[in-house]
């Protein structure tokens, strides 16, 4: 089960305020799918580019990135510019 | 912008005839009129272009040694006239602060005057110069002081069908000079938050023999402040005299609050700018005395 750390706003809006969530998944695709089950709307936000994810401290745009059983997935809110 | 007719008469008489039907507007530079037409702030069913009337463009010397400026003369032409610029630097610099070079290649003194904006840059110096203007209309010609043309924001004392054909500046006195200053957030392309014109005449001993001070943008029209001029006459423009000048100007100012500045700020600046304009005019007058 990977440990997922969520930014405050996303935690409040989609995950009932829980800023840390445990989800199964051996790739980010699987983790995102699992997060969608617990927090509907997460997948659309992540796909839209509004959220980025780092696995064990390394930002990963590619969701095929492997996620280990005790990996930490940090969800970061992303900002597009002007 | 429903303008139905455009005329460019070849004589003043034709122009007056065309202007007498309701709603016809004279066009000289057009840099105020066309902006207002496009923005729907001015209805102009008929336009009468004055620029093809011979004699209305250009600067001529008057018999008394003054200057006659045709109503269709663009501001940049005033700067190009060396004699005028030397005699009345304040009038010329006021006219050449309007808008940009593009605007000043079109805008005219008569247009700036008749648009009757309280903040018109050329009017305070025209007033302190004692300028007069020739008005032509259905009832013939008459002469009047420039100061009497504007009566309120956007309103003049001209009767329907009347148009200003010339602006006449008197000869400059041997030891007199004028100046115009304005306060704007930008160095160009701006509208005066406060404007101040001054004409000063100095005696041989440097004391002030005559003075006229006028303010822009602090009342419904540009305004001569007699008390301000009077406070200088007979003095050597010392601190006390200048303080009295400032106080007189602040007292005469009845500005509004608007997007460009607060009333309080305009009152304060009326004093500051008038003082600076007087000193600049005095400096020029002193220089003329020596030259």
């Amino acid at each position, binding site marked *: 089960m990977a440990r997922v750390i969520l930014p*405050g*706003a*996303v935690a*409040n*809006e989609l995950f*009932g*305020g829980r800023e840390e969530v445990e989800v199964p998944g051996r790739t980010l695709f699987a983790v995102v799918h699992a997060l969608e089950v617990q927090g509907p*709307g997460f997948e*659309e*936000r992540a796909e*839209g*580019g*509004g959220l980025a994810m*780092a696995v064990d*401290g*390394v*930002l990963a*745009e*590619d969701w095929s990135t492997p996620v280990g059983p005790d990996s930490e997935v*940090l969800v*970061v*809110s*992303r*900002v*597009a*510019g*002007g | 912008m429903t303008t139905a007719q455009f005329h460019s008469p070849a004589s003043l008489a034709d122009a007056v005839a065309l202007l007498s039907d309701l709603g016809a507007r004279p066009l000289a530079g057009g840099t105020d009129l066309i902006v207002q037409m496009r*923005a729907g702030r001015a209805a102009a069913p008929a336009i009468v272009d004055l620029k093809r009337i011979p004699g209305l463009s250009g600067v001529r010397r008057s018999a008394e040694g003054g200057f006659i400026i045709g109503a269709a003369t663009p501001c940049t032409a005033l700067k190009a006239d060396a004699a005028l610029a030397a005699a009345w630097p304040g009038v010329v610099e006021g006219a050449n602060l309007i808008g940009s070079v593009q605007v000043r290649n079109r805008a005219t003194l008569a247009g700036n005057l008749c648009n009757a904006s309280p903040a018109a840059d050329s009017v305070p110096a025209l007033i302190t110069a004692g300028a007069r203007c020739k008005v032509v209309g259905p009832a013939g010609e008459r002469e009047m002081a420039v100061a009497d043309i504007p009566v309120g924001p956007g309103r003049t004392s001209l009767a329907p069908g009347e148009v200003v054909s010339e602006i006449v500046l008197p000869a400059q006195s041997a030891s007199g000079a004028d100046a115009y200053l304005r*306060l704007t*957030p*930008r*160095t*160009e*392309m*701006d*509208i005066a*938050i406060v404007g101040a014109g001054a004409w000063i005449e100095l005696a041989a001993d440097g004391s002030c023999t005559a003075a006229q001070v006028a303010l822009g943008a602090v009342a419904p029209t540009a305004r001569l402040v007699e008390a301000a001029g009077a406070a200088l006459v007979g003095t050597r423009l010392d601190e006390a005299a200048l303080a009295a000048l400032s106080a007189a100007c602040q007292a005469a100012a009845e500005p509004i609050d608007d*997007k*460009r*500045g*607060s009333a309080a*700020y305009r009152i*304060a*600046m009326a004093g*500051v*700018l008038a003082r600076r304009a007087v000193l600049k005019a005095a400096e020029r007058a002193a220089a003329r005395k020596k030259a």
Partner: protein
Amino acid sequence: MNAPTGKLANEDGYRVVGTRPVRLDGVDKVTGKAIYGGDFVAPGMLHGAILRSPHAHARIRSIDASAAAALPGVKAVVTGADMPDDAALKAADRTGDTMAIARHSMALDKALFDGHAVAAVAATSPEVAQAALALIRVDYEVLRPVLSIEAALAPDAPLLHPGHVTRGERPGKAEPSNVVGVTTHAKGDAAAGMAQADEVFEGTFSTPPIHQGYIEPHACVAQWNADGQAQIWASSQGQFMIRDQVGKILGVALANLRVVPLEIGGGFGGKTRVFLEPVAMLLSRKAGRPVRLAMTRGEVFRASGPAPGSRTVIRMGARRDGTITAVELDIVLTSGAFAHDESGPALLSATMPYTIENLAFTGRAVFMNMTTVHAYRAPAAPQAVFAVESAIDELAQRLGLDPLDMRIRNVARPGDPGFSGLPLGEVGFLEALEAAKAHPHWTAPLPKGQSRGVGAGAWGNYGGASTAEVSVADDGTVLVAEGNPDIGGSRAGMAMMAAETLGIDYEQVRVIVADTNSIGYSMQTGGSRTTFATGMAVIQACEKVIADMRHRAAMVWGVEDAEVDWRDGAAWCGSGENAGRSLTMKAIARRADQSGGPIAATGALMAQGYLPGVGVHICDLSVDEETGVTTITRYTAVQDVGKAIHPDYVEGQMQGGAVQGIGWALNEEYVWNAAGAMDNPGFLDYRMPVASDLPMIEPVMVEKPSPVHPFGVKGVGEAPIVPPLAAVANAVSRAIGKRMTHLPLSPVKVQAAAAEG
């Protein structure tokens, strides 16, 4: 899908990168041939016009456009009812952005800002279109407008969107309000950190909404045919962005929506969303003919996407040695009529150049009866950084420290934890601060009556999706097609990166910005991403072309590909009887058909590893304390640019961003009358800097290359607007001995402050 490797054409440095060639689209632009949004004409084109609400807040009871529709020459009339309904827009995307953009482009049942579109017509001439607007009757029920942050937050404030619940609020706490969303960020223990401080500064700062000020008003032509296929010709920061947004709003399949990019007359973030295109499409479908819609300058001010106004309360504690122990920051940004919450980027950027142990940030955006705000060059960073850099300057003065030294003391270095907690990459914050300190301007004696201010500021930049296609013509010349509108010379940059990678001359490469049916997806031009991300895609495509040409040469020489080297635009044989021989691109391309067919390759990738840009600006100015007029006398802009591909256009970004910041600091602001109508919707009373207001802006490029980009590129477009607000305000504050906290620093404000003493 891996990032390109990219090799130096030769080891001792670059041949093309770093030089200053003339841009490819230059001749068209200096001769007036370039086609911008309002210049394009389609056969049979009609002229559209939009009727806009004169009220800032009103219910639309009814619209009677029958007289307008009957006017000879009028070919189509649309209102909000012609737009898809709420359900369809909500289904398009749950974030609500599509609904917000659609309803901003055309009101449905409520006018929420002065200038809000309520109806539109298409006619055979602009004059007929204007006449038709005058015949449209709208029955408004005028409501009380909300015109300030205070009014929006007042308990009895009218709710602009009654159903809206604050996003990001803790569960159970969220109830209907004008607060669009709330974002928080905490690190360490702010209260404890504040207690350790020897000096604490507390202040409230504010900035008004201001506009990007692009000189080209929005304009487009749309053609929606009966078979459902559509074309849009428009100037924007991204033709793919237009396709996405219009496709979602109107439910058009993306392949049916070809968007052709015209030249763009400035955007600065303000053209990263659609305003006119959905309405022009609806008009075109009804009329069966192409329709041009363009905004007047007044419409741009009243109804496009200005930058949000802000109110920031900040507390900052520092020890005697200048170490900042804690920062508490609460920022409220205006969102305008619809949701556009920039509190996220505000918190992200606030203290980006620094590593500070204890932070407690809160950011909110509030609805207001004003046009919906949108991105403006490093969105929300200038507002937040204005407060932070002013606080640092104030503390430096109180602690008797050199303001640059104090900033250097707190600088964030590579490996420090960034905002997200992830370690920072090869950021150049320290290098930029040291370069500013070493610059002659910093130690030049100040002429009498002048004062000097400094400000720093960074922007995170971005990478993202880009596609580029490179093909080699028979004569060996190279064609690059990419998808990013060229606002500031990026075509030249792409050609230079292609030429450098291929080892050929810049003049042998031509670049076009392709329409959405001619090239793969590219995220729009914005976020300072284009030279970084699209550059990578161009380089990747060039590398594939090189591999292909090496293979073809290997076939000619009968050797393995690995035996063939690529250097100076040619293949070189490394072994066998042909060792030492070479084949130029021209020679290979001429016989392309005989070696497998046309030579072309596509680079498509998600550019990662982007690094933030940072600017440090030094501003000298004089203040006429009697009148409050400020005159900028000297200005130096230092910036870590990674590696400048085309230095002219990197310098241009630094100079343009600095001057936009100077305008923001000194004179630019939205002014409304009591009824909520904009009072200065024009370039006279919305005062942007003119040429005679400014000295030369000296650019100083610090080149700490990015290890991720083949040529070391970092984004440069947005960072330069972040420092100037504080640099100017710090200089004015020092000049009059009073901390100036409310922009703009107009003569009226500065004179009043100086008079208070």
